[in-house]
């Protein structure tokens, strides 16, 4: 290592300074939401709370856990996410494995068929009509089937199969009498756990956060995922049933509603927040694999 010149030192200082500023800009809103959810709503609304909670209480959380819509939305989202991710994963493997095989005749044609949909699609209205004609409106499956697989994840997984699993392994398996399906389940999949983890993560986050399909296709509140309930509370401001209308004054109600909003933000992201530190190294790996174009 050469000795650092003065120019280098100045460069380093400015560089670190810029990165610290960026980091603060990113993290501040998140910390604020967390602190606000534990604070006395009045202090938050008056603008007396800037970083640390003021007048700590769990009042807003109590309101949330008494609310049926939120709890049901949570349960629905958990179901959609787990079933949806399972189907996504199976479908992705089913597509990625054959496409990774050089001796799979027609793979370029099939790949082109898939990739074309990245750039051109039927659009909102024809897709909506199709779902309607299939009788899937307002069913459980409408949250799962129309997004059964994503081309990005197929590409990522295919690239992984091609790069990380040597061709000799295929040949050895074939000579030992493995069928293609046996090769996949006994040899390829056990070796592919990192990419499977990444795929699960990407799909699960997608399901957890999706609201648009639900908004388009669902009409029963019983089936609403959490994000749709969040939209009602956060964006459309429908919180009436959470706050007792009768006794309290309008101003006090308004304050309570604002407090609930902060707590709802936290509750909705708890699973992601909890898993995030453990999963980070996986998803970076996933993007990196995806970045190398196959």
């Amino acid at each position: 290592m050469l000795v650092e010149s003065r120019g280098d030192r100045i460069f380093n200082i400015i560089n670190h300074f810029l990165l610290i500023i960026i980091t603060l800009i990113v993290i501040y809103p998140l910390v604020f939401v967390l602190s606000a959810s534990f604070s006395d709503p009045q202090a938050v609304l008056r603008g007396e709370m800037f970083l640390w909670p003021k007048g700590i209480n769990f009042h807003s959380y109590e309101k949330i856990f008494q609310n049926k819509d939120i709890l049901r939305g949570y349960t629905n989202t958990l179901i959609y996410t787990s079933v949806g991710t399972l189907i996504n994963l199976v479908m992705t493997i089913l597509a990625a494995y054959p496409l990774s095989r050089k001796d799979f005749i027609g793979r370029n044609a099939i790949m082109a068929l898939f990739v074309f949909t990245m750039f051109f699609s039927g659009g909102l209205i024809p897709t909506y009509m199709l779902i309607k004609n299939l009788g899937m409106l307002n069913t459980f499956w409408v949250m799962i089937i129309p997004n059964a697989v994503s081309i990005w994840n197929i590409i990522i997984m295919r690239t992984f199969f091609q790069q990380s699993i040597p061709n000799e392994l295929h040949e050895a398996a074939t000579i030992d009498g493995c069928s293609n399906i046996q090769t996949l389940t006994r040899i390829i999949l056990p070796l592919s756990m990192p990419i499977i983890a990444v795929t699960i993560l990407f799909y699960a986050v997608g399901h957890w956060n999706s609201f648009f399909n639900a908004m388009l296709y669902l009409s029963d509140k019983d089936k609403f995922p959490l994000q749709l309930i969040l939209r009602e509370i956060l964006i459309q401001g429908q919180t009436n049933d959470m706050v007792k209308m009768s006794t309290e004054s309008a101003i006090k109600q308004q304050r309570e509603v604002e407090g609930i909003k902060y707590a709802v933000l936290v509750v909705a992201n708890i699973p992601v927040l909890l898993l995030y530190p453990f999963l980070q190294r996986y998803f970076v790996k996933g993007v990196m694999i995806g970045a190398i174009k196959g």
Partner: protein
Amino acid sequence: MANTTVQPAMNAVHEKKRRRRQKWNPILRNWQLYLLISPVVAYYLVFQYLPMYGIQIAFKDFIATKGIWGSPWVGFEHFERFFHSYFFWRLIKNTLGLGLYSLAVGFPVPIILALLMNEVRAEKFKKFVQTITYAPHFLSTVVVVGMMMMFLSPRYGIINHFIGMFGGNPINFLSEPSWFKTLFVMSDVWQTMGWSSIIYLAALAGVDSQLHEAARVDGATRLQRIWHINIPSIMPTIIILFILNIGSIMGIGFEKVLLMQNTLNLETSDIISTYVYRSGIQDAEYSFSAAIGLFNSIINFILLVTVNQISKRMSETSLW
């Protein structure tokens, strides 16, 4: 093979059969692969290609009882109606404006962030910055828009408290049309810059360190090395991502725009895709909306192909 001793005439027939078998052999041998992939092909045909068949209703007057096939053709009537409508220029202006604004701000930021992070030698600090900046990527659009509305609320929002502290008047950001694009783009930068920088970081990790050594011996400063080595090295990645970004200009952040939209900011927030949603799903004007949607997709597709072609000529980097 035993048939090498058979007469020449028979041989020819066998030869033909053998050839045919050879041609089909790899396919028959791998029949399981075709079986495996068939559900995925079926999914694409039904959920991606069948809607493309449905596009024809843009040229028809869709009547539900007659179905897509039975409805009468009307040619370009719906397109003409759209081109002549009061909304047309406003939608074009907003869609392109928002797309270009996002591209101009949102595209370079992750590159700069990656270049900055790449220069950090302290691993722990680098990890820390990465962990924080990636995090908002995992928030949903609903959550981000919800947070924005709370922070920007004219009476209770923290931003307006700050403005108040410095003696300014509260601004009602979300109902002010002139603020819409900036809010949309800035919140997007906040949410995605860290995540989008990963690809560039990966590309930077692949830069040949000998180039840096040589430049250092020649007395190049850090900035010079970034400018003359790092940026040219990741240029192919930048171009590919730029083309992909162009390809999504017309469909930019549809869900988020829809969530941020209200009757007061409609003047600048109404883009083609939200208009399709309103007239199609809410007002059930299927044919008219399908026509607008098709118009949008075609422009998008043309943009993508054009930029790809230009890039191919100028830099020999392209998607296909």
